[in-house]
């Protein structure tokens, strides 16, 4: 297992490096600079001298290849650089925003898994029944809603009309504040997980070994418990891993809507303000977390499915 883990970890390194390269190149041609963003609200007149100094300080006067060299040298020392805006190390800025995003994605995934997977199971065990039809129509509808629209509706319903939950913000980090944004973020993966689980269970239901299990005189319940669940889990886990990427991407929208102080809103802000080191750092961190989660999923799958380790 240790060797497997090591191999998987080593495989992620080139991806990270390539991402670093890609986003550096992308953002080296972005129009607008941090200095120009400082006066985008029209409040203060652009001070050409300050702008010039800022651009000099942030190294924008160097040619791209020089900047890239510096950037790679920094990265090699695990240094993400300094944020233009906060004038603090990017690592520190990211660290401040990591936790809320972690909590939010975790909560929405738990919400999605806790409801989506059982729903998919129930639907698959009774294909064609009303439970199946209703949940699958619900799932495909859930996949068809614009996220911010859904979030806004949730806000209106649960905060304004019903008054059950706070409408925005992180508050004291308590659960009450977490519920609405994680539902808004979790509906799509929920729908997807329900569909995947259903499809996986249906597929496994026709597998030879399930027939064998039945031929042993097992009740349907035991068939599901002893044989079907574990096999479906591998497929569901893989889907969860891949979904994580989508969820963390969509978190950008949900965080902005709910004023949630996570990486997503930091990323959007930093793109708007052209705080490029933070943008690069945030994307790298998001990619890294995606890779970590998927490595974890692979390890879990390898524990569940003994065939994986050896292939």
């Amino acid at each position, binding site marked *: 297992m240790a060797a497997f883990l090591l191999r998987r970890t080593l495989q992620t390194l*080139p*991806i990270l490096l*390539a*991402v670093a390269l*890609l*986003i550096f190149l*992308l*953002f080296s*041609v*972005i*129009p607008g600079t941090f200095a120009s963003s400082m006066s985008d609200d029209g409040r203060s007149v652009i001070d050409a001298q300050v702008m010039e100094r800022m651009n000099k300080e942030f190294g924008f006067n160097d040619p791209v290849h020089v900047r890239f060299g510096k950037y790679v040298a920094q990265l090699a020392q695990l240094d993400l650089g300094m944020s233009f805006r906060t004038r603090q190390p990017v690592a520190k800025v990211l660290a401040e925003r990591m936790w809320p995003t972690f909590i939010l994605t975790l909560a929405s995934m738990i919400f999605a898994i806790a409801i989506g997977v059982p729903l998919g199971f129930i639907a698959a065990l009774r294909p*064609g029944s009303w439970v199946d*039809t209703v949940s699958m129509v619900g799932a*495909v*509808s859930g*996949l*068809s*809603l*614009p*996220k*911010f*629209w859904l979030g*806004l509706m949730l806000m*209106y319903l649960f905060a304004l009309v019903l008054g059950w939950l706070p409408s925005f913000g992180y508050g004291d980090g308590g659960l009450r504040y977490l519920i609405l944004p994680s539902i808004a973020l979790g509906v799509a993966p929920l729908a*997807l997980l329900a*569909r*995947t689980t259903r*499809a*996986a269970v*249906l*597929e496994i239901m026709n597998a030879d070994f399930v027939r064998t299990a039945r031929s042993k005189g097992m009740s349907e319940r035991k068939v599901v418990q002893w044989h079907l669940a574990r096999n479906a889990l591998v*497929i569901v886990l893989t*889907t969860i891993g*891949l979904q994580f*990427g*989508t969820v*963390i*991407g*969509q978190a*950008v*929208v949900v965080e*902005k*809507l709910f004023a949630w102080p996570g990486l997503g809103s930091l*990323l*959007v802000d930093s*793109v*708007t303000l052209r705080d490029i080191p933070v*943008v690069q750092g945030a*994307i790298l961190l*998001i*990619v890294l977390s*995606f*890779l970590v989660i998927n490595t974890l999923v692979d390890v879990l799958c390898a524990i569940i499915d003994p065939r994986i380790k050896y292939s």
Partner: protein
Amino acid sequence: MKFRANLLIGGALFGLVVIAGLFAPLLAHTDPVMGANLMNAELPPDTEFWFGTDAQGRDIYSRVLHGARISLTVGIVSQLINTVIGVCLGLSAGYWGGWWDDFVSGLTNLMLAIPSLIFALAIMAILNPGLTSLLIALGLTNWSFTCRLARASALSLKSQGYVQAAKVLGYSDVRIMLTQLLPNMLGPIIVIGTLGMGGAVLAEASLSFLGLGIRPPYPSWGSMLSDARDQITTAPWISIFPGLAIFVTVLGLNLLGDGLRDILDPQSRTRRA
């Protein structure tokens, strides 16, 4: 049978959108851009303005119709780009193998690791908001599934007798890929493309919300919905109709994709849930 219902309802909904888009100039009451008349601003739906009017006094019904063109363009063109990229890379990687295959696999993993909305966001910021930018942004960021599928199909197909036979006959690699391999993987690729079109329409809405979507004068549903979100208490109709249009289109495409999958790609229900 259920899959028939999928196909039927999905096809009907999508067909509705296609008709709306194709015949928008005939069906629309006013020009979606020049129809602005501030004297009519924010009128609720009535017999003249079926869906009401927006803040600039434009007929929302006409704008929703014309928006279908934009959304269809976004969905179809971005998916075409994705499909072409995915198929070219995947097919050639699976067929040729070797370092090219390693390279393409690495690239696919890379694309998979960057959440596509974030990637698209970055591209939109670089290219400035707009329709062309959006087509590029969405077209470049969602091909990894197609690529994986094309590669896997090419790998399994290339050892088949008829492909080997074509090789012996001296067909060029490109010809073999296009005439022998491609037709045999078309089904699942069409399914992915159909579902991806729905994803693209939603992505357009998300990017509009983040301020990086299509910008006027194109009446895109995403920007209509996003711009109207502040008026939801005062003039809900401005957002309801474009929202509904997005929902109907994506729902139709999802159902259509499901239905097509049952027909074209029956053995792999779980491949790309």
